């Protein structure tokens, strides 16, 4: 099936089987390998992307369901320099192997965009949908808390 959607601000198309997940379409058809597959059954969160600004597990969505939508991956949140959120992760050593990291960055970005005042409990609650085996989460939470100041003043979720 031919699908078309907006990916990281640009219009893209892909020819996929109906059974192709959005995650596999992004990785295999569109070359966006920053979205990772840790479980393919919707628990680990490594595949998190933004669909219309909302954090979503790309392994639990069919590519065909993304037709006509706006998708943003970790690549779309990254530029020549680290974003303030990414720099905060680096400063707090909030990643070791890095495999879960794109999922945490997209989730945290979605959270702070709509809730720049999120407190530690809320942050931990939201991040509980992403598994990390290396860090024990403490530095990730610290990084997200420290990044809030860069999101203050933004109102609405997209």
């Amino acid at each position, binding site marked *: 099936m031919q699908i078309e959607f907006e990916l990281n601000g640009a219009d893209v198309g892909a020819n996929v089987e109906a059974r192709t997940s959005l995650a596999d379409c992004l990785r295999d058809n569109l070359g966006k390998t920053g979205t990772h597959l840790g479980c393919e*059954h919707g628990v680990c969160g490594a595949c998190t992307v933004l669909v219309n600004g909302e954090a979503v597990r790309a392994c639990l969505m069919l590519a065909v369901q993304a037709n006509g939508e706006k998708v943003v991956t*970790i690549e779309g949140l990254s530029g020549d320099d680290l974003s303030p959120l990414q720099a905060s992760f*680096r400063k707090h050593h909030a990643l*070791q192997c890095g495999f879960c990291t794109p999922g945490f*960055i997209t989730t945290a970005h979605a959270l702070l965009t709509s809730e720049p005042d999120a407190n530690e409990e809320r942050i*931990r609650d939201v991040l509980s949908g*992403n*598994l990390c085996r290396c860090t*024990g989460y403490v530095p990730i939470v610290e990084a997200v808390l420290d990044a809030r100041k860069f999101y203050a003043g933004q109102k609405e979720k997209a």
Partner: protein
Amino acid sequence: MRVRNSYIGQPMERTEDMRLLRGRGTYVADVNRPDQLYAVILRSSVAHGKINTIDTSRATQLPGVRHILISADLGVVVPKIPLRLQPLPQLEPFHQPMLADGKVRYVGEPIAVVLADTPSIAEDALDHIDLDIETLPAITSREQAEAMPAVLFEDHGSNSAITWKAFKGDANAAFASADYTRRETFRVQRHAAMFMEPRGFVAEWNSDAGKLTVWGAAKTAWYNRRVLAAALDLEVDAIELIEVDVGGGFGSRGEFYPEDYLIPAAAKLVGRPVKWTEDRREHMMTANHARDIECDVEIAVSRDGRFLGLRGLAWADIGAYIRTNGSVGPRNVAQYMSGPYTFENIDLKTTMLTTNKTPSGTYRGPGRFETDFIRERLIDLVAKDLKIDRVELRRRNLVADSQMPYPLASITPYDSSTELDSGDYHAVFDLCMKEFGWAEKSKLSGKLIDGYYHGLAVGSFIEGGAAGPSEDARLVLETDGSLSVYLGSSSVGQGLETIMAQIAADATELPYEKITVNHGSTSHVKNGHGAYHSRSTVMGGSAILLAAEKLKDSIREAAAARFGCAAGDVTIDGEQVACAGKTLLLAGLSDVPLEVEASFFNKKYTWAYGTQAAHIAVDPGTGHVKVIDYLSVEDVGRIINPLTLHGQAIGSIVQGLGGAFLEHLVYDENGQLLTGSFADYLMPTASDFPNIRSITLELKPCPNNPLGTKGAGEGGLIPVGGIMANAIADALSHLNVQPMELPLSPARIWQLVEDAEAIRAVA
């Protein structure tokens, strides 16, 4: 005048983060080769059986299925996975064939490899393969292994593979004359490393050049290359194993598994690149399991609380085969149970039992998580019986600084002995107690507040590191003045590129920003060894130190030739060399890169050590445990990067909490793995354990390597099981609840409370 580099000890932000944070890492699933086929493995759904026939004809008819590899394709004899560690001849019967050979012995054992145009088509094909397997009784417990309704290895004749014996002094005499002994049975559950990136390989065979390239290497690439070469009947030099970014290992990824052979074999057979990634369900039944033991153990103590001896038997359920390092955990259970305490008399044995479950191997702190659960529980029980404060009892028996080096138990067969190297265990213990606020918090022991009973516990641990035999480093001063470091050490996410650059910068005096570290791939150095047993900083780092000295010599000679002076008169100063007032830039000093290689050899383990304390609260109605405060204090001798070390400590503690409370690989009586996804195999999440603290110290350097550092990073989890169980016993002491088995699930704690209340009711 430039200040000397001193990057060692600095909390440098990591170079690898620049790509990993932006999704620009390359993990093996991100590697693609032109014209590649995708592999999916047909795995046994039966725990124990004889393969009568495999009929792939229906499957090969599916459009897009290109080849299905079965054992007949692999030659007369299906190769077997050798033992990398403790390769005793009597363990050969238990080696795993790289593809099931007439028999299957665990659910998940590979039977065939389907190659297709897409992973989906390959997976579709699995249902179209007709297998005739005659099922045999499944062995899933110690009782069954011993009763033997079946044996896994008919030639061997029993399900008991080997018994390791750890000994020191004269345990029988010590027990015979001891004032007090206590004997208990403990169990630790089967769980596993469960790293986040599933395993995978991409293999490509260039028949014109006779060269095989495999992406996806990790941990022990040089050893794996030798095994692969032998299995494929190729020269070692014909194979290159490439390490890309690695999503965690924890001792499990990177050992030689069947797929390390099957994927390259498939590529060589069909002449097209083959790509394979496992899915999570597959991972749970194929990657090494760990920690499954039962232990009947006793402790002997003098009336005034001096530990005299440990004696006992452990049974390790190691699964269906002994893989590359399958003996390590069970051996460590016997050899290291004494931990950081003085025990002059030890007689501990571990028997490895084969069962129809996934084979096991090392997982962070192998054997040590188990020993510390057992030993720390015993200590608290002893304290209660002898009416000695459990903090004081530990102080009384910690190995003293003046006793270093302190011998641990020796072990046989594959004899080895080791000794604790250096450390002020008492100072660290006292610091932990003080930082934790033990005196104040202990007033809460056993108190019921808002429906929760509060409890405390403390435990000390040792952490072995820096396994030998050697590690290689190659340094290249490029013509542009930058430094390329090539290491045999492997990355599993621990920040190798940053730490080694820090060491290299200090050792060579070259600018940190101009140093790049390359790791893990077999083309980098001749004889690498890899990352295991927390060895990379000591072994790789020390190799860099040695290579740096050689490089400085080379630089001085090159400069001397240009200056026309003696090499000894040349000074190296960051980006330039100088002699008698003349200077030259390092960039362009030589027309060709200056290259040196060095090996560091080591026979002595390092021993980091520490103490942890915890405050928890238990809800007896639900069995829920809240971890209110958890503190770890560890001395590692010398800290290269406090940021990354601290990160390891916290991560390790949380893994320990997962092992203490949540994680459990469960089989039914037919050998079916019931926990086959993250819905049932529960890992810690961000909301489970928010209150973890860690302090790392540089109190007592290691005397046995030039860096003075000790392998660290595994330690955090080692005492966690014991401490959590002791804290629960402390909280519920009014009922005399005594946990003897992990995990400390809500249902188990509730049952312990029920049982205790029933006893109290009739008392």
